[in-house]
Structures are given as structure tokens and as C-alpha cells.
């Protein structure tokens, strides 16, 4: 009988496994109706935002624990739109390794961490990029006294420090391979360790997005000893990311960012936003919610865009406050409105 008992158990086990695989579970939420993430956020009372572990200009905490930066401002905009108060955000510092899993696992709802938008990231790992808040490119930093003034000065055997698991690592390889230079990649998980390795002389060059180079330089022992080489070797569109499967939440984040950019386009800023509700321009009126029912599409009230502009400011104000005035990158480069020679061109809010 014992023999039969074993068989019985095996059959039961197989049956339960079969049952599990037979069930094809459905999607995240219904076709229409409020987003699950939105509901949870409103219930919790704060937006869960994943940021970097300290990158001046993008997401950096001061001694008192206050976070500032252009990435931080994206989350604040969403909080202003969804909860009415831009300060209702909980920031979770993440390394490059944990950033995506924190998002897919539900630990955070927005990843605003100067993440490059690539095909594989968009398609393969269950995430959706909702826009670009900073157009950037990858560059190299070297010591001033090394005598190198351009990437053409790189010779065989050079050692390059970077972060693990980033597009930087892949682009670096493509770059050196295309020029036939043999190099030594030294890759760490934490940005601080990469900077320390480069600073101590372990590596000859430090490579990441140029905005990151400029920001990290402020944290080195002698910032003036280092220069960023002029060449840009890749496209790095940095933007916020959300989980795949909640399309309404995607739209909320996407349009919060777009509103900020469009506000600058129409000259609406945090000081004059209220007066703009009685503007002559119907586009402006729609933008600040004085006209139309745009908020209802997301399940929000109509003042959502007005709150964003009033509490966080438009894109230009955010950039100036965080990146230009702190001396990191005074020149906006491609991050300027299309009407002023840059490439910020967002769909209209109507």
C-alpha cells in the first residue's frame, strides 16, 4: 500500500501544478476605469519615487534630507497633479542594479533616475518609458594634467571606470571596438565607488552621461583637476519610467512632464500661472485647466495641470534652479524648446 501512497502523492502534486499552469490570469486592470496605481497612491497619500543615490542636479538630498533635482521635480509634478501637494513624495535611493526590479516589484511607482530610454529596456523587462526630461549623450572625463584633449588621444591599454549594467558599459565597448583600441573596463555598482576609483588613479578615464560627469565632478577632491572631453559618443535620452500594464498611470506621468514643457513654451510659469487662467489664448486656458475637461480622462480634477505649474514650475524654471544655477551645466544645449533651437517638442495638451 505504501507503494500506492507514493504514486498518489505524485499524482496530487502533478495535478496541482497542472492546475496552476492551466489558469491564464488576466491583465492588471480593466480596459477603462481608474488606474490601480493611482488608487493606491491616493490611498497611501504619497507618490513613491525611485531616485538616484545622490546625483547633484538630478536627484540629491541635502543634509536635512530634502531632495532636489530635475528628476525629483518630475515626481513632485505627479504628486501635485494626483495628490494636490508636490511635497507628498517618498524618495527611495536606488543603485543601477536595483532600479528596475524596484519598479517591477512594486516598491516604487515612478523611476525618475536619469535612465536611458532604449528599445530593450522598453520592450523586454516589463517597463514603459513615458518621456524624456533630459536629452544627453555619453562622454569621457580625464585629468587635466594627463594632456589628453580629445578621444582621439586614447591609446591601447587605457582603463575606463563606469557603472555596471548601464548603457554606458555597452556604448563604451562599441566605441573602443570601432576604433580598435584595447581597453580595461572597471565597473562598479555604486556611482560613488566609480568616482573614487577614477579619482584615486585606478582608472585613466571615467565615462557616463555628460550630465552625470558634470555633476559627479562637483563631488571630487579637486574638481578643477578634471575636464570633460568634448566628444559625445552616444545618444542618451533620459526620462521617467513606470511599470507596464497600467496605461492610465503611464498617461498621468507622461502628461505631467509634457505640461511642464508646454508651460514654458507658452510662457506660463509658477508666478503667473494663476493669472493665466484668464488668458486670451485658448491653448493656455486649456493648459491651466480653465477650459475643457482634460483631467477627467485620467480620473483627476481639472486643476491638475495648474497645480503642477504653480508648485513645481515649468521645465525652464526646474532646469535653471537645479542645473544651471548650481553651475553644473549652464548651457541648456539640446534641452531647449524647439522654438528656441532645442529639441523639446511635446504633443499639445488638448
Amino acid at each position, binding site marked *: 500500500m505504501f507503494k500506492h501512497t507514493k504514486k498518489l502523492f505524485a499524482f496530487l502534486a502533478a495535478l496541482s501544478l497542472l492546475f496552476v499552469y492551466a489558469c491564464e490570469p488576466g491583465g492588471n486592470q480593466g480596459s477603462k476605469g481608474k488606474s490601480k496605481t493611482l488608487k493606491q497612491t491616493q490611498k497611501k497619500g504619497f507618490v513613491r519615487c525611485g531616485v538616484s543615490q545622490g546625483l547633484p542636479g538630478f536627484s540629491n538630498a541635502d543634509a536635512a534630507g530634502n531632495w532636489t533635482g530635475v528628476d525629483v521635480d518630475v515626481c513632485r509634478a505627479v504628486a501635485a497633479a494626483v495628490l494636490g501637494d508636490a511635497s507628498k513624495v517618498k524618495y*527611495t535611493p536606488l543603485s543601477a542594479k*536595483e532600479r528596475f*526590479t524596484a519598479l*517591477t*516589484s512594486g*516598491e516604487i511607482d515612478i523611476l525618475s533616475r536619469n535612465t536611458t530610454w532604449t528599445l530593450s529596456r522598453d520592450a523586454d523587462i516589463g517597463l514603459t518609458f513615458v518621456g524624456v526630461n533630459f536629452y544627453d549623450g555619453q562622454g569621457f572625463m580625464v585629468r587635466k594634467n594627463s594632456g589628453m584633449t580629445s578621444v582621439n588621444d586614447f591609446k591601447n591599454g587605457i582603463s575606463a571606470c563606469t557603472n555596471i549594467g548601464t548603457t554606458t558599459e555597452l556604448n563604451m565597448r562599441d566605441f573602443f571596438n570601432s576604433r580598435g583600441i584595447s581597453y580595461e573596463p572597471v565597473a562598479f555598482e555604486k556611482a*560613488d565607488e566609480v568616482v573614487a576609483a577614477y579619482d584615486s588613479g585606478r582608472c585613466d578615464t571615467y565615462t557616463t552621461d555628460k550630465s552625470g560627469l558634470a555633476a559627479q565632478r562637483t563631488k*571630487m*577632491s579637486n574638481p578643477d583637476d578634471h575636464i570633460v572631453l568634448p566628444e559625445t559618443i552616444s545618444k542618451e535620452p533620459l526620462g521617467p519610467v513606470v511599470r507596464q500594464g497600467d496605461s492610465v498611470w503611464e498617461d498621468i506621468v507622461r502628461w505631467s512632464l509634457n505640461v511642464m514643457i508646454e508651460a514654458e513654451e507658452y510662457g506660463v510659469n509658477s508666478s503667473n500661472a494663476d493669472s493665466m487662467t484668464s488668458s486670451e489664448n485658448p491653448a493656455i486656458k486649456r493648459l491651466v485647466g480653465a477650459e475643457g475637461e482634460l483631467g477627467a480622462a485620467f480620473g483627476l480634477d481639472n486643476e491638475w495641470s495648474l497645480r503642477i505649474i504653480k508648485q513645481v514650475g515649468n521645465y525652464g524654471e526646474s532646469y535653471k534652479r537645479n542645473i544651471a544655477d548650481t553651475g553644473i551645466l549652464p548651457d541648456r544645449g539640446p534641452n531647449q524648446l524647439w522654438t528656441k533651437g532645442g529639441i523639446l517638442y511635446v504633443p499639445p495638451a488638448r
Partner: protein
Amino acid sequence: MSKINFLKPDKSNLNTFLYLGLFLFFFSILDVFLNSFFSLNLTSFLPGFLSFVFPLLLGFVGLYFIRIELSGIKQLDIFNKNINTNNFNAILSLVIIFVIIKSTPPLLSWFVIDASFAGDTKDVCTGSGACWTYIKVWIRRFMYGMYPNAEQWRINLSFIALAALGCVGYFATNRFKKYLTLYYVVIYPIIAFIFIYFFISGGAFGLDWVETGAWGGLSLTFIISFFCLIFCFPIGMAFALGRRSEFPLIRYISIGFIEFWRGVPLITVLFMSAVMFPMFLPQDFFIDKLVRAIIAISLFEAAYVAEVIRGGLQALPRGQYEASKSLGMGYWKMHIFVILPQALKLVIPGIANTFLALVKDTPLIFVVGLLEIVGMLNLAKTNPKWLGFAMEGYVFAAIIFWIICYAMSKYSYNLEQKYKTDR
């Protein structure tokens, strides 16, 4: 005075050899001492290499002269037996003494003499010694992590309260002794959990909520070690019993569990908890980072505890099992009252070892994103205002860990001596 043969020290010319040998021996030590502490080179008239070897030669000759067997002087005999048994030992002893003397001044100067203690900013640390100012400024972060300064009294209070409650067993009168096991296994963990949940974490009764991501430093080390120990012990015990069970299915499941957790490194287990675990839970169900880490480490250590306890169970003679059965005790009664008390006494060193390993493994939780003391060190050493003080930080953490672990191993040794019952 009989003929002195300098190649064969013997008792007849005891005094000569003794005084000569001791003089040479101490002179060599003095030479090295002056050289390292005061940079005085007594033998500078000799060429470089010879000057280096000279004290060694002198000391060796001195010890050779002293090596008189059965000299009759008690101290000399003890000295000879311990340090000077033959040429090889003599040279080794000399080398060790010289190494100790030579390494003391640089260590002393780095640790104390040239070190900076006062002040608040980096500019104070101009000397070539250690910058203990750095530790002083960051000490709160190293102890409490990012926990807000104003709320740190809550952690202090909780630890003092829990420590006091933990020592209750020592003061218990005989009347309460039989409730001790129940207290330690059930009530104490519940109290600890309540403290952690309501007091340290807060969020109720007017206390600010501090999220677990902000916990860190040495207090986090203690919290994790404590909770992992509480959880891994019963789980390990269950699996140890399961592995020795007569039921084949239970036995195989236990073996599978134990071998699985023992075969993988802790860092991959923590990766799994950080990366895979959330996938295995329903969508709305979000478990805190700290809880995930504690569960992962507890399961991991439970496998090791299971093996240790199994060793103890195996060491018991079969007579115990048979006698209990003959008294009519069932499986559980037998184990709770007869087998486990004896087995646990046997494996106290093993369990203490496992707990020590647990404490030493806590720095690995940087994988999950939590920063205990080593993590805080790494964070502090890259702060732009305090670059370049990695060494001081690591030495500080090493001293703290060393004190904790050494104290624990000594305590477990004492415990083992105390509970050594003759079987």
C-alpha cells in the same frame, strides 16, 4: 674555573655564560628598540645588510649561550623551555620579538600620537596619523544609520528595555524557572516585535513614522541579528528533527531544504530576496525590504542550525530514546523533555558559532539596499567633504566587530563550561 668552551655552554661555567648570553641578548633587543623608536642606528658603521642582520646574530649567540639544560635556576629553565629549545626556535623567537618592536612605533603614531581627535571639519586632520575627528563627526550615522537625530532616543530606549528583559532569566527565582522556556521562546520575541513595530518604526501614538530604509548602522546590525536568531532557531530545530524522522517524505523534504540553503552563498540568497521574491507574491502584497532580508537570512541560517542540532541529536546514545519510549512517552514528549535539553547543551558551541557567523554576515545586506555599519562607512567615505578617510572608517568598524565577536565567543565558551554535564 674549568676550561671555557664557547661552543658548548655547560653548567660548570654557568655565571660566565649566563651574564654574557643575557648581555648579548638584551643588547640586540636594545639595538632594534633604539632603531625603531628613536631612529638611532648603533651599528651604522657596518654596511647596510650587515647592520640589518647584526642584532639577529647577536641575539642568536646570546640565546645560544644561555641554552644550558638543567641549570638549576628556575626562571632560566622556564625561559629556555619556552623560547629557547633549539636553534630554530631561538631564531623564530628573535624574529617575532623584533617584528613586534619594529611595528609598534608606526602603529602607535598612526593610532594615537599623530592622530587628530578634536575639531569638526576635515581641516583639523593635517597630521599623518589617523583622523578620528571623522569618526567623531559621523558616529551618529554609523550607529543609527539615516534615522533622524531627534528620534534616536527611541532606538536607545528599545535596546535598553530589551536587554533588561533579556536578563530576566538570570534573576528569576525558582518559582518562575519553569516558565523561563515559554518566556524566551514565545513572550520575549513578541515583546521585541512590538517594540520594533511600534516604537522604532513608529507611526502611532504620536511617534513619527521612520521607514525601514532609513534604519541603519550598528543598531540595524543588532536588530537583524536578533530577529534572525529568534526565527532561525525554531525553524532549524524543526528541520533537524525532520531530517531524523522515520517518515521518508518528511526526511527527504528536510534534506532537500537543508542541502539547498547550505549549498548557495548568502549573497545569492539576498539577491533572490531582493529581485525574485517580489515576483512570487501577489501584486498588491508588498513586503518591506527589511522583512524580506530577515526572512532570507533566517532561512539560510536555519539550515546551518539544523545541521548543528542534528549533530547533537546524533551524539545522544540510543539508550535515551529507548528509555523514554519505555516510559510511554510519545514522540513530542520524548523530544521536549528528554532529548532536546541534552542535545542543545551539547551543541552550544556550534550554535554560538552559527550566531557569530550570522553577525559577521550582516554586512551583506547592502545587496538589498539597507545600510548597516559597513554600508554607512562606504557611504561616508565618498562624501565630498570627507574624502580619503577610508582606512579610519574600516579600522573603527573592525574594532567594533572584533569586540562584539570576541566577547560572544568567550561568553559561549563560558556557557559551555557551565553547562557541561557529565553523561
